[in-house]
């Protein structure tokens, strides 16, 4: 029996491929194989002989089977190795391309602003961009022929001769949304109103269209000191600089009283602007306490309610924060600019995830 074992184990070890191995299996442990034939002979043996030869034959069969299985695996592994060796690819070739889209800085910054003000309880209000002159001017305490009207470089819409209404305007600021929002919601109210505004001005630093965000908070006891706090909180969050300072300077807007222009702290070092440090100031927005006539025009009783409003340029904020030099390029759609200053689609600014990218 030992001869038998040796014969087949060495045959298995020498088998060169799966077919040869299968032949050996049939010869050894197949139905008519040598081991099987021997097992048939067990019946002719005495019980004593059988007790010795039976287990021995079973053990031999098991041993040959596991040797066959092991060899089969080894052969398969070798064959796989051989195949893999031929399947080499140049993995330094580029991956399959996928277009990279971008979000425009104006959209990104608008979302940043909305996220900060949402935390302070300001909803987002909207209004039409073609406005009546009543909403754009009169309701904001700028009656016809008020000298302030001329300072806006207003775009007027065409008016048919038969139509005697004053011409509509392209809104020169987001402030008419104040009136519309208060008419709709009354007081108390807290809203911001971002969007496109238009002025007839085109040079190095002006474009005939740009973006503003209006802020409005009306309640029973809101003061200008609250406005200062809100703006400082906003700038700290927006520029991600703790303790950023603002400076209020007396100014005049027909729709606020008192009015202030607001500067933020900055420094100029070697022509580099840095926000939130240094002794210089940069004007960033106009603001004030909403004029009683504006509240009245929107149907809010100025004896009961008061509050602040402000307006600032979104494009300007984007330029300051992200170091974008030229306003005009915002609206030129130069692919190189869009890719360089744009934001990834999933970079959604949130307070918990951070506002800057």
């Amino acid at each position, binding site marked *: 029996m030992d001869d038998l074992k040796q014969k087949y184990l060495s045959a298995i070890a020498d088998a060169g491929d799966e077919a040869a191995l299968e032949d050996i299996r049939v010869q050894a442990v197949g139905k008519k194989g040598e081991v099987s034939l021997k097992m048939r002979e067990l019946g002719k043996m005495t019980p004593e002989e059988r007790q010795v030869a039976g287990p021995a034959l079973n053990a031999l069969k098991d041993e040959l089977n596991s040797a066959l299985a092991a060899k089969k695996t080894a052969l398969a592994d070798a064959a796989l190795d051989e195949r893999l060796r031929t399947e080499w690819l140049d993995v330094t*070739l580029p991956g*399959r391309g996928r*277009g990279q*889209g*971008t*979000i*425009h800085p104006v*959209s990104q910054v608008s979302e940043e602003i909305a996220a900060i*003000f*949402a*935390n*302070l*309880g*300001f*909803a*987002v209000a*909207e209004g*039409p961009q*073609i*406005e009546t002159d009543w*909403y754009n001017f009169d309701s904001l305490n700028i009656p016809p*022929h008020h000298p302030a009207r001329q*300072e806006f470089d207003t*775009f*007027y*819409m*065409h008016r*048919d001769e038969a139509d005697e209404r004053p*011409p*509509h305007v*392209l809104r020169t600021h987001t402030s008419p949304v104040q009136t519309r929002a208060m008419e709709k919601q009354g007081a108390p109210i807290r809203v911001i109103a971002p969007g496109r505004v*238009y002025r007839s001005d085109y040079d190095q630093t002006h474009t*005939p269209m740009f973006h503003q965000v209006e802020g409005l908070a009306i309640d029973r*006891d809101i*003061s*200008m*000191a*609250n406005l*200062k*706090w*809100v703006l400082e909180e906003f700038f700290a969050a927006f520029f991600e600089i703790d303790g950023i300072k603002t400076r*209020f*300077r007396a100014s*005049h807007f027909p729709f606020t*009283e*008192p009015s*202030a*222009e607001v500067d933020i702290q900055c420094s100029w070092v070697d022509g580099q602007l840095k926000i939130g440090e240094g002794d210089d100031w940069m004007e960033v927005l106009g603001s004030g306490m909403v004029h*009683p006539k504006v509240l009245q025009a929107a149907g809010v009783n100025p004896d009961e309610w008061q509050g602040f409003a402000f307006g600032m340029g979104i494009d300007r904020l984007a330029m300051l924060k992200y170091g974008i030099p030229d306003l005009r390029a915002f*609206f*030129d*759609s*130069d*692919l*190189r600019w*869009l890719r360089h200053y*744009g934001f*990834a689609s*999933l970079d*959604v600014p949130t307070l918990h995830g951070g506002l800057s990218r």
Partner: protein
Amino acid sequence: MKFTLSWLKEHLETEASLDEILYALTDLGLEVEEVEDPASKLASFTLAKVKHAEQHPDADRLRVCTVETDEGDKQIVCGAPNARAGITVVLCKPGDYVPGIDVTLSVGNIRGVESHGMMASERELELSDEHNGIIELPSGEVGQKFTDWLAANDPAKVDPVIDIAITPNRQDALGVRGIARDLAARGLGEMKPVDEPRVEGQFPSPIKVTIDDDAREGGCEVFAGRLIRGVKNGPSPEWLQQRLRAIGLRPISALVDVTNFFTFDRNRPLHVFDADKVKGDLRVHRTKGGETLIGLDEKEYTFPAGAVAISDDNGIESIAGIMGGLETGCTEETVNVFLEAAVWDTIQIAKTGRALKINSDARYRNERGIDPAYNLQAIEDATQMILDLCGGEASTVVVAGKVPDVSRAYKLDAAKVQSLVGMEIPESEQRQTLTRLGFRMEGNMAHVPSWRPDVQGPADLVEEVARVASLTKLEPIPLARPTVSVPKPTQTPLQRRETIARRTAASLGYNECVTYSFIDRKSAELFGGGADATMLDNPISSEMSHMRPDLLPGLLQAAARNQARGFSDLALFECGPAFTGGEPGEQRLQISGLLIGRTGPKDVHGQSRAVDVYDAKADAEAVLAAIGAPAKAQIFRNGEAWWHPGRHGQICLGPKKVLGVFGELHPKVLAEMDVKGPAVAFTVWPENVPMPKKKSATRPALELRDLQAVERDFAFVVDADVEALTLVNAAAGADKALIDEVRIFDQFIGGSLGEGKKSIAITVRLQPTEKTLKEKDIEAVAAKIVEKVSKATGGTLRG
């Protein structure tokens, strides 16, 4: 508004430095825009004395001088005829920058003689045009700074010029005295009193004045004047010329300069007529329209109807309150002058000024509102000045109309400052501020000074108090959040949709653009716009004349610009308003994407291919899915004319409800807009997608079937113009309970099928719900599918 420091000090007694004054001005709301300090460019020059002057050995006109300076004696070569021993001169040393010749000096060598600097003329230091010789000073010590000498002896030459921005409410600060008043209120000094001369009339004015009845209301409140006869006009004195020049005005003659002086000193525009050229009396009246006048600027103006003008017997002589006429203007020869001080209606001035497009100092002030109470006294003040400068004899004053009564008072509520501004300012300080600004306090009523037409209510009092106290001192106070709870979301569903649509487009590979809302008429017309209702009355250029009817023309223009820069494969999108008309609200939100060229650059995997309509369709569907549009929509043709007629589809819920559109752009549109194709695009209107009805966040339960699904493939031969969706819908309708999904996996056109035929292959997925499907069940469904499809499309199962 420009003024000089010395002019300011005519009205303000102050020890404050220039910097302190500048800071206070800006802080008070009179924002300093520019300061020109002539001392700064003269800072390096010192006084020196010429000890000897000898003839240059090699040049007839040059002298070699020995000059005593603070650094010892220096040799300087000088060509000035007045260079001689003993005179005190202004020395520019090597290294100094000399502004008048734009040169930084170095040690020179002039015809063989070294020269260590130069002695300057007035022109070389930009002090005047004088260049006949070098400056000879009547006094001064060697080494003294020239600026110090000027400050002591000729202060006007080193007078800083300050330019401030005037907000529309601060007409009072359009005169130097008004500016001084603000600074005094801030505590920077005391107001100097002004003389109030009264000149007795020596004879009745031969020129009378009247205001037509229809010109009183909204025209002219008061028109006062007087004749001064026997004046000698000519150049005004140097001090006056200097002042006017310093603020950028050209001195003309004494009489005209007097009017300009009062314009800027007291915000009181005046006019002077040459009385000998006025025929008869002066009458203020409404224009009929079409009259013409040559103004002092020598331009001809044609009046609109209803403007206000001043006429004599010859016709119109002055654009009232805006500009005088050339014909009756004063010249050097004027001997009899008629002086006018009037108060005009501000709105009338603004209207006429705008109609005639005149921007004069007089219009600027008269339309903002001058101090109406300073009228008769202004006549007296100006008369006195004319008599002082030109001599002559004044008539009595003639007046038409009357000085308007603008007196009014508002209650000062001291607590209001605290409540509105959030600053604590004691009541006594508030009252003092108002008093210093010219308000008259009577109990707690503040009577508004006549020069502050802008103060119209108690809130204005708060503003005055706060700005004088300085808003810079305002300390922030937290604004309580409306609730202590977690803040609620603030976006409306549509705003949220807009954000998602935008970010979905970007993640599909599109670059977001923000293009102008206005485009040229031709492009607008290509996209269904360009009507007059959407036209701007005053566009900045013809390229920006109409509100855009759609976002695609702007994107196509952007694409053309990028193609010109060498970028041929583009994926651009924009999300914003398009305008359907010219009324407020005739705008709607749109998101449009534009694909041009190939899907990407040539690549090793060979996946780059020309973009086609199915790219645009997939992107439109992705955006729609992201904003919650129902998965099943209909596709209709017959979209707008800018699409390829056979290669576009409108994604609809019913024939009226268009959610979006996709397709290839019409080749003619591309050619017109100079864009090289292929170009496909999509548009989605987020507002048109129905808002979900459900309120709860809970999803419906997930139904998972244990029974195995079965898939069967079918191929149908149909006519080439049969739409695949018809076939799919027919197949899906064969057994709605059992058929889970129908997918198209192949299309084959022509070939062995013959002309006008195509084959569409679909996979139908059957999902049993109760028992495993047996072959006969499947065959029954298959037969039904074939029957339904044949009925719907006329197609046959492909053998």
